């Protein structure tokens, strides 16, 4: 077993050998592992090149696409089949589905669907669009993605953000957005409802933007943030003043 | 006006001038002659401050040339070099006005005095008719007239010229040298490097001949412009006869030099 440079979760896999980066894996390093199976996420154009190269060398490569929870669960099941752990995979999916159902039930009891904006990167702002898991995470957590762009990412002007008037503002923090400013330190966005009400939070890029079981954690976390009345353990970090000190540590 | 002592000048490692001693008094009109590659242009460039002296000393008006700032030097010396190009986008008037650069301060631009000096220089160089033309559209001869005008706008105390009239036709050449003689009569010191032996002999009371980086001859035209000297210098048969109007010595080539050389 091996991992790419960027994979660090769960912590137990950091001891595994690295085969290069996710955009340009080192084919030689992959072959040196003599793998029975290579898993590759679809999406980026660059991703298909190493797949071709590995297939040419007789390596079995399974390419997955997970832009919805349904696709994510089917991926988990198929990986289960491919790795001979069908039952474990099935159990995992069942568990995840059950947790989503709980959230669904709680959310359907609430009223109000706040307009949310998910910031992928800033400055040169990129926001999550309609296609992709983030959009579904927001929807399942009882919000509405206010970015109407059908693509996965949308490059928005600040003016457009003000026009969209998001009531909740999510800033992902991680490799894509290494050091974003909290919303209350962005003077030009001071007038948007999320800034006025203080409904702005940093969230973990690994949890929201990487397909995996942790996306369900994301739904739980976001649901608690958007609808505090459902009383579920919230792990999000607020960017408002009273919690800023804790945030910096 | 000019005092050169033991001047050596190098291009890289190659020494081109090997110990030049030359004194030119205020108000002289001197022709600088010599075969190709004898160092005429190098000497003019060194006197104008464009080439540094490897050793030796150049004094201009009593001041060490090396100790002068660019601006101070430009106020003492006006120079017209051969093969100067005129860049696109400037009118002749603008180009001549640039001759006044050294006369202006860093903060003040060109003033009325400068515009007047440029206009006078254009008039004297008979380039008034070109004033509003684009400098890049001029013919070679016109460019040289304009550059002469610029040198006059810059100053008239000491004029250094390097083949400054070679691109002009015969009539313009005579006009230009008439102008130089006129300026000289008005007090300007003129040192002009040129190929044309007869033009030099016609206008310059004193000639300096360079050969292989050394001064070969230096003296009054009447004394040194002789058949024997010219034959020695140019290594070809040359006859000297008096000019039909002025009586100045004029050199005439003799056909058959090639056959004589092949011997």
């Amino acid at each position: 077993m091996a991992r790419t440079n960027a994979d660090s979760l769960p912590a137990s896999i950091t001891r595994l050998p690295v085969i290069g980066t996710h955009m340009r894996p080192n084919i030689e390093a992959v072959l040196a592992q003599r793998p029975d199976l290579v898993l590759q996420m679809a999406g980026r154009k660059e991703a298909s090149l190493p797949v071709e190269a590995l297939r040419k060398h007789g390596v079995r490569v399974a390419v997955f696409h997970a832009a919805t929870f349904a696709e994510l669960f089917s991926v988990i099941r198929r990986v289960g089949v491919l790795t001979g752990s069908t039952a474990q995979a099935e159990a995992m999916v069942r568990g995840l589905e059950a947790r989503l159902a709980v959230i669904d039930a709680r959310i359907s009891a609430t009223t109000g669907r706040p307009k949310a904006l998910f910031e992928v990167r800033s400055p040169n702002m990129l926001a999550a669009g309609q296609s992709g898991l983030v959009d579904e995470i927001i929807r399942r957590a009882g919000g509405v993605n206010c970015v109407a762009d059908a693509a996965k990412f949308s490059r928005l002007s600040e003016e457009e953000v003000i026009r969209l008037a998001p009531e909740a503002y999510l800033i992902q923090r991680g490799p894509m957005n290494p050091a974003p400013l909290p919303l209350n330190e962005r003077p030009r966005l001071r007038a948007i409802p999320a800034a006025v009400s203080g409904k702005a939070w940093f969230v973990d890029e690994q949890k929201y933007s990487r397909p995996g079981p942790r996306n369900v954690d994301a739904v739980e976390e976001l649901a608690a943030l958007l609808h505090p009345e459902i009383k579920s353990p919230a792990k999000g970090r607020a960017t408002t003043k009273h919690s800023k000190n804790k945030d910096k540590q | 006006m000019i005092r050169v002592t033991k001047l050596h000048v190098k291009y890289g490692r190659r020494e081109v001038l090997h110990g030049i001693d030359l004194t030119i008094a205020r108000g002289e009109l001197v022709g600088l002659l010599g075969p190709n590659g004898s160092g005429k242009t190098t000497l003019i460039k060194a006197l104008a401050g464009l080439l540094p002296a490897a050793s030796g000393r150049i004094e201009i008006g009593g001041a060490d040339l090396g100790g002068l700032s660019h601006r101070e030097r430009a106020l003492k010396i006006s120079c017209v070099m051969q093969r100067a190009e005129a860049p696109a986008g400037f009118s002749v008037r603008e180009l001549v006005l640039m001759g006044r650069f050294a006369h202006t301060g860093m903060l003040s631009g060109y003033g009325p005095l400068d515009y007047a000096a440029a206009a006078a220089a254009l008039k004297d160089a008979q380039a008034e008719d070109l004033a509003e033309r684009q400098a890049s559209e001029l013919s070679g001869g016109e460019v040289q007239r304009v550059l002469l005008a610029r040198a006059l706008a810059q100053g008239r105390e000491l004029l250094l010229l390097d083949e400054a009239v070679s691109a002009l036709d015969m009539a313009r050449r005579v006009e230009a040298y008439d102008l130089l003689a006129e300026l000289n009569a008005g007090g300007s010191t003129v040192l002009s490097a040129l190929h044309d032996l007869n033009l030099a002999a016609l206008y310059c009371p004193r000639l300096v001949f360079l050969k292989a980086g050394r001064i070969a001859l230096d003296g009054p035209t009447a004394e040194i412009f002789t058949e024997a000297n010219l034959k020695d210098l140019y290594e070809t048969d040359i006859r000297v006869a008096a000019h039909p109007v002025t009586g100045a010595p004029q050199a005439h080539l003799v056909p058959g030099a090639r056959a004589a050389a092949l011997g």
Partner: protein
Amino acid sequence: MTTGARDSRAQGRDLRTKVLWISLICAASLVSGIVACGLGSFPSTPAQTLNALLQALGVRSGQPVDPALSVVVVDIRLARVALAWLTGAALATAGCVFQGVLRNPLADAFTLGVSGGAAFGASVAILTGVGSGLAGGALVDNLGGLSLGGLAGSAGLLPLFALAGALLALGAVLALGRAGGGPSGGMNRETLVLAGIVVSTFLSALISLLKSLDEESVSSIVFWIMGSFQGRGFEHVRLALPYMAVGLGLVLWRARELDLLALGEGQARLLGLNAGRSRLWLLIGASLLSGAAVAVSGVIGFVGLVVPHLLRLVVGAGHRTLLPASALLGGLLLLWSDVLARSILPGGAELPVGVVTALVGGPFFCLLLGKRFRGQA
């Protein structure tokens, strides 16, 4: 006396053409600035826009202005108008100076490696994480107590990194140019351009190296290199203005020297110019201008190339007119490029303004070149 009268008449006519052009561009800039404040995805009527602008100026008119609209019109659009105008002015002036100093019509911040240096500085900032989350207030605070810890941990040092990169690249180019400039110590223009190409090639290789080292930052670096005014505000204007003012002062002060340099080193020196020193100061001024521009906006091409070329056809090559005219027209051009960049795509999405200038400037520049060559033939 008659010649004097004719001289002054000719000069007067010449001057009138130049004054006419400059006042025309000035008026267009002013009108464009106000119009541009009314354009964008946030709906606003001209009356509302004017009202918001007037309120920002302290003029109280009848009805109060919606705070969101006020932020959009003043803090976003007006700030971008100001920054785009300044950046365009700086880039065009710098291009004009580079072309004059190098006597090369294709010289630009790019040819000299200055843009490459700035881009490299910015890439370093992005990679080490000090560059993201730019905030003017935070930046000014940080400048006060700039320590190593502050450097590593603070946000928004990207512009300073870019500026440092620009100046370092220029230093390297000048050193290389000097080393290859021959015994007289002068820099010949071919050597300088070659040195610029060497340095920018080396720097772009370094940028590629940085990108390979950290794939997650690639998109940040790429977007930054394309150039954009997205998310910029008055803090960026404040940041860039001092550098631009100093740079502009420096080159305008020496505008006449640029005329002399255009004649070539020999003639410039004969006319009393210390060509080496003059060139150095002019290049430093132009680097300040382009470094500051690149620092706040990323790499924006073609403005520095197209604007001076176009104006040379209209007002001539005399830099006392050409430099200010380039600044004014460069500002106007980039102002409208930015308006296009932020309003041409539907749904409030933005194009990098560098793409707009390249798309508009590329074909336009080809036309100019064609015209020039036909003119020479």
